[in-house]
C-alpha cells in the first residue's frame, strides 16, 4: 500500500486531543473546534538496495557531469566534504547516509589508484564534531582509515592559512572557501537534504566558507527577502549561494555533488505514536504515550535530555542523486517534495506548533532560548511555499519550556548574546549594526570555535537573523509553558496554557480567530494556496 499523502484535518467535537511537542516532553491538547491540523505525508518506502542506488547515481550522474569513476585518476587530489552534525535530526541510526555514500566514493577512488584523499566536515561556523560523532556519521571503517592518519579534517573558518579567496560575485559578494577543497582536482560533496533549504550550491558556498563570505547572505536583509527559506523560488539566501556556487565553478573547482533524501521515519518504534495521526493511535500507542509521558514527568531534566539525545531516527534513504550541482539539487527537491509537501488552502489568524527538544544546533546539547526562537520562527514558520500558513499580523503560538539554560562549551557566545545584547535590544538591524562585528571577531570566541566545541561567536546573531522574516510578518509570538523571564527576554509573550495563549492572541487578531496547527515533527512543507 502506498503511503498516504499529507492531510489537513478540521477539528470537530469527536477529534481526539492533538499531540504537541513541548521540549523534552509532549502534551495532548484539545484544540478548538474548527482548528486545522496539518499532517505531513506518511513516510515513503525505503530504497530496497540503497548501496546499489548510490553506485548507480555515481555511475549515472545528472547534468553535464561525467561518471565519478571517470573523474578519478592516480596522483590527483581528492577532497570529500560532508554535512556536519546538524543533519539529520535526530541523528540517524547507523549506517548513516554519509557513511554509505563516502564508502562508495572511496571504493571508486581506491579502484582508480587515488591516494591523496582527505575528508572534511563542512562545519561552516558550527561547532566541531567530537570523535564519536564523526565515527557515527562516517562509520568505523572510514573513521579508522582517515582519522588516525590525520586525513580527517573539520573545516576551520578562522584559519587564514587554509582559506582561499576565489573572487567576488556580480553582487560584490566575497567567495572565500576552504583552501584544500578549492585546490583539489575534484571536490566531492556528500549531503543529506533534510529540508528544502539544504543542499545545492549552499553545501560548498556555505559549508566550506569563511565568515567574510558567509556574512553576505547570513544577514538581516537577505533573510527578510527569503520568503520562505524553504521555497527556492523566493529565497534570497538561495540566490546568494547560487551566485557564489557559480563563481566557484567558474574559478575552476570541479564539484561532484551527491545529495540524499530521507523519509520521515523520525522516531523508533517505542515512540511510534509520535508520527501517527492521533485518531489512529492503537491501544499500544496510547499505552506508549502514557508510559513515556509519566516516565518523563518523573525524570530529572538532565536525564530526560540524555534519553532524548540518545534517540536515533530510523530514517531510510529515499533517493540519491549525483553529478552537477544544480541538476542534482533540482532532482533532490523533487524527491524531498514527494515526501514532505502538503497542500493547504488559505492562511490563518493563528498558527500553533509544539517545539521538540532538538534543532540543528543543539545535537547532544541544550536547547537554549535563542535556539527555541530559531526553531520556531526560523525553521518551522518557514516550512511553507508560496505564502506563510499564518497571515501577516497574525499570531504564532509555540509550546516549549524555554529554559534559561545554556551549554557553555557549545554556546558560549549565545550566553553573552542573550544576557547582554537581548537585554538591551531585540531589534534585528540594531543588533546587526552594533554587535555583529564584535561577536564575529572576539578572540575568545574564535579560540573556542577553533580549539574547543563552540559555535562561532557570530552564530547566535545568525540564529536571531533567521527569525527575521517571521518577526516582520507576525503581530505577536506567544510561548506556552516557557520560562517567563526567558520568553520576555526574547521579546515574546509567555502563557501558561494553550487556552491562555489563544485568549492573548485575540488581543492581536480579534475574537474567534482561525487557527492552524502545524503537526511537526515529522517534517512537512506546506504549499499554501
Amino acid at each position, binding site marked *: 500500500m502506498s503511503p498516504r499523502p499529507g492531510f489537513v484535518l478540521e477539528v470537530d467535537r469527536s477529534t481526539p486531543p492533538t499531540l504537541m511537542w513541548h521540549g523534552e516532553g509532549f502534551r495532548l491538547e484539545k484544540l478548538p473546534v474548527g482548528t486545522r491540523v496539518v499532517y505531513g505525508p506518511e513516510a515513503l518506502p525505503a530504497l530496497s538496495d540503497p548501496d546499489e542506488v548510490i553506485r548507480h547515481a555515481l555511475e549515472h550522474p545528472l547534468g553535464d557531469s561525467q561518471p565519478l569513476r571517470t573523474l578519478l585518476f592516480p596522483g590527483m587530489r581528492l577532497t570529500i566534504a560532508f554535512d556536519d552534525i546538524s543533519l539529520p535530526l535526530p541523528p540517524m541510526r547507523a549506517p548513516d547516509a554519509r557513511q554509505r555514500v563516502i564508502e562508495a566514493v572511496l571504493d571508486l577512488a581506491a579502484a582508480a589508484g587515488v591516494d591523496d584523499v582527505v575528508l572534511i566536515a563542512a562545519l561552516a561556523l558550527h561547532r566541531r564534531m567530537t570523535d564519536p560523532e564523526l565515527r557515527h556519521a562516517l562509520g568505523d571503517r572510514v573513521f579508522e582509515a582517515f582519522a588516525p592518519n590525520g586525513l580527517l579534517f573539520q573545516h576551520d573558518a578562522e584559519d587564514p592559512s587554509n582559506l582561499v579567496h576565489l573572487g567576488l560575485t556580480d553582487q560584490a559578494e566575497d567567495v572565500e572557501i576552504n583552501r584544500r577543497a578549492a585546490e583539489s582536482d575534484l571536490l566531492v560533496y556528500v549531503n543529506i537534504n533534510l529540508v528544502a533549504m539544504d543542499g545545492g550550491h549552499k553545501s560548498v558556498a556555505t559549508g566550506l566558507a569563511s565568515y567574510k563570505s558567509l556574512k553576505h547572505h547570513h544577514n538581516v536583509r537577505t533573510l527578510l527577502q527569503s520568503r520562505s527559506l524553504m521555497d527556492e523560488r523566493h529565497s534570497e539566501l538561495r540566490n546568494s549561494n547560487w551566485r557564489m556556487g557559480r563563481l566557484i565553478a567558474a574559478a575552476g573547482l570541479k564539484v561532484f555533488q551527491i545529495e540524499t533524501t530521507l523519509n520521515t521515519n523520525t522516531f523508533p518504534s517505542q515512540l511510534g505514536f509520535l508520527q501517527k495521526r492521533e485518531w489512529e493511535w492503537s491501544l499500544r500507542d496510547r499505552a506508549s504515550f502514557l508510559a513515556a509521558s509519566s516516565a518523563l514527568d518523573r525524570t530529572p531534566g538532565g536525564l530526560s535530555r540524555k534519553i532524548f539525545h540518545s534517540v536515533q531516527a530510523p530514517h531510510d534513504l529515499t533517493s540519491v542523486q549525483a553529478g552537477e550541482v544544480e541538476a542534482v539539487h533540482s532532482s533532490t527537491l523533487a524527491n524531498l517534495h514527494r515526501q514532505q509537501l502538503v497542500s493547504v488552502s488559505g492562511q490563518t489568524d493563528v498558527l500553533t506548533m509544539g517545539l521538540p527538544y532538538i534543532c540543528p544546533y543543539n545535537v547532544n546539547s541544550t536547547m537554549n532560548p535563542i535556539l527555541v526562537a530559531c526553531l520556531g520562527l526560523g525553521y518551522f514558520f518557514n516550512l511553507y511555499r508560496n505564502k506563510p500558513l499564518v497571515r501577516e499580523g497574525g499570531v504564532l503560538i509555540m509550546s516549549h519550556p524555554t529554559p534559561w539554560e545554556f*551549554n*557553555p*562549551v557549545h554556546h*558560549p557566545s549565545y*550566553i*553573552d548574546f542573550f*544576557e*547582554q545584547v537581548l*537585554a*538591551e535590544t531585540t531589534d534585528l538591524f540594531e543588533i546587526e549594526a552594533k554587535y555583529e562585528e*564584535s561577536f564575529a571577531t*572576539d*578572540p*575568545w570566541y574564535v*579560540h573556542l570555535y577553533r580549539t574547543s566545541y563552540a559555535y562561532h561567536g557570530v552564530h547566535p546573531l545568525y540564529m536571531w537573523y533567521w527569525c527575521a522574516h517571521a518577526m516582520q510578518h507576525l503581530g505577536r509570538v506567544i510561548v506556552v509553558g516557557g520560562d517567563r523571564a526567558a520568553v*520576555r527576554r526574547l521579546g515574546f509573550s509567555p502563557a501558561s496554557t494553550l487556552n491562555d495563549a489563544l485568549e492573548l492572541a485575540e488581543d492581536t487578531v480579534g475574537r474567534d480567530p482561525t487557527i492552524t496547527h502545524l503537526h511537526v515533527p515529522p517534517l512537512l512543507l506546506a504549499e499554501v494556496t
Partner: protein
Amino acid sequence: MKALQFERNVPRFAAARVASSLAGSGRGVRVGPLELVELDPFALPGPGWVRLRPRLAGICGSDLATLDGRSSRYFEHIVSFPFVPGHEVVGDVEGGLLDGRRAVIEPVLGCEARGIEPLCAACAAGRKGACERIAFGHLRPGLQTGYCRDTSGGWSTELVAHQSQLHEVPDEMSDEAAVMVEPAACAVHAAFAAEITGGERVVVLGAGTLGLCVIAALRRLCLPGALVAVAKHPNQRDLARDLGADQAVKPGEHKRAARRLSGSLALESNDGGIERLTGGVDLVMDCVGSADSLQQSFDVVRPGGRIVLVGMPGLVRVDLAPLWQREVELRGAYAYGCEDRPEGPRSTFDLAFELVREARLERLVSARYALENYEDAVAHAAAAGRRGAVKIVFDLRKGAGKDAPGGEGVKVAQMAATTKEAK
C-alpha cells in the same frame, strides 16, 4: 530636640550584629543601640559654629553597617559615643553668614572645624577627607558629623556645624536634590581618584546610591570608554543605564560582560564557564566594599589595571595573589575636599552640586520617613534595591507626617516595586 542616638552599648551592639546576620541588614536596629531620644540642644563648640535644622537626612550604606554592628573596629578611635548619625544633610541655617538660608553639610570634621592651627598638610591643600587630626582639637573624635558626640547629626531636629562645612543650596534646587549632594561628592571624588585619561573600559560594581552616583560622575566628568554596571535589581539596572552605563548586568554576569567588553581570553572552569579572565577591563569601581565585590574586582581587572574601592569595606578575606601576579593597583576613595582640574582646584562639593543638577539625581530619593518611623526607614533602606528604591531619607520638615512615612517618595518606591513584580 529630638534625635536618634547611637550609644556605646556592647550587648546591644552584639545583638544588632546577630539580628542582622540572621534576619538580614536593617533588622539589627530593633535590638541595637539606636534610640529615639529627647536631647538638650548642643552647645556651639566654638567660633564659626552655627545651628542647622535638618530638612532631609539620608540613610547611607555606612550608617547601615554601623546599625548592623558590621562596621570595622578600625573606626573605634575616630568616633565618639553617643553620637547622632546622619551625614547626608540639607537643612536651614541659624546664625552666621548663611543665616536663614538652606545649606548642605560637608561632614568631614577637619582641622578648621576643630579649631586646629596650623592646618594639617591635607587640610591646607583642601583635601579635608585626608585630615590627620580628626581625633583632636576642641571636638571629641569623629571623622564626620554623624559620628561625633559634640555635633549631633542629620537624624535629628537640630545639629551644630562649622561654617566651613556648609554649602549654600541655590533657591531653585529642591531639598531632594540637595540631600543627594553629599553622596554625589563621594562619587565625584572617586571618579577623579580613578585617574581616567580617556577611553578606559570600566566596570562599576554595585548600583545602590553610591554606585549610581559614580556612574553619573564617570559619565559626566571623565571620559571612560565603555562602562558596564553590575547591579542586583532590575530597577538599579534601568537607572544605571539611564545615568550613563552602556550596559547593566546581573552580578553573576560580570565576568562575561567584562570579557566581552575587553575582548579578553578566559580560563574556563570545569563546567565550561569562565573561571577568570586573562585580560580584563582597565578600571573597576567597587562601590560595594565586600569580600565578594573585591574578589569580583580581581576577576575582571586587567593586568596593570586599577581597582578603586569606593564602598566602605570592613574586615574582609580576599586572595591577593592576582593583585601581586597581575600588578593590579588597589586604591581607596573616601570623602571629598578639592579636586585638581585643568582649570585649577575645584571644591568637590561644587562639582557635586553640578552633577546632581545635570544627572537629576533627586530622582534617586525614593522614600521619606518621619524620624519616629526609624525602624521602618532603616528596614526600607537596607532592602532598598529589592524593594525598587534607592535613597531613603528622614523627612524633618514641618508638616512631614509623624506616623506615616511621608508622601510622594514612598509612592514612587511602591510603584517601582509593583512594576517589578508585574514584570
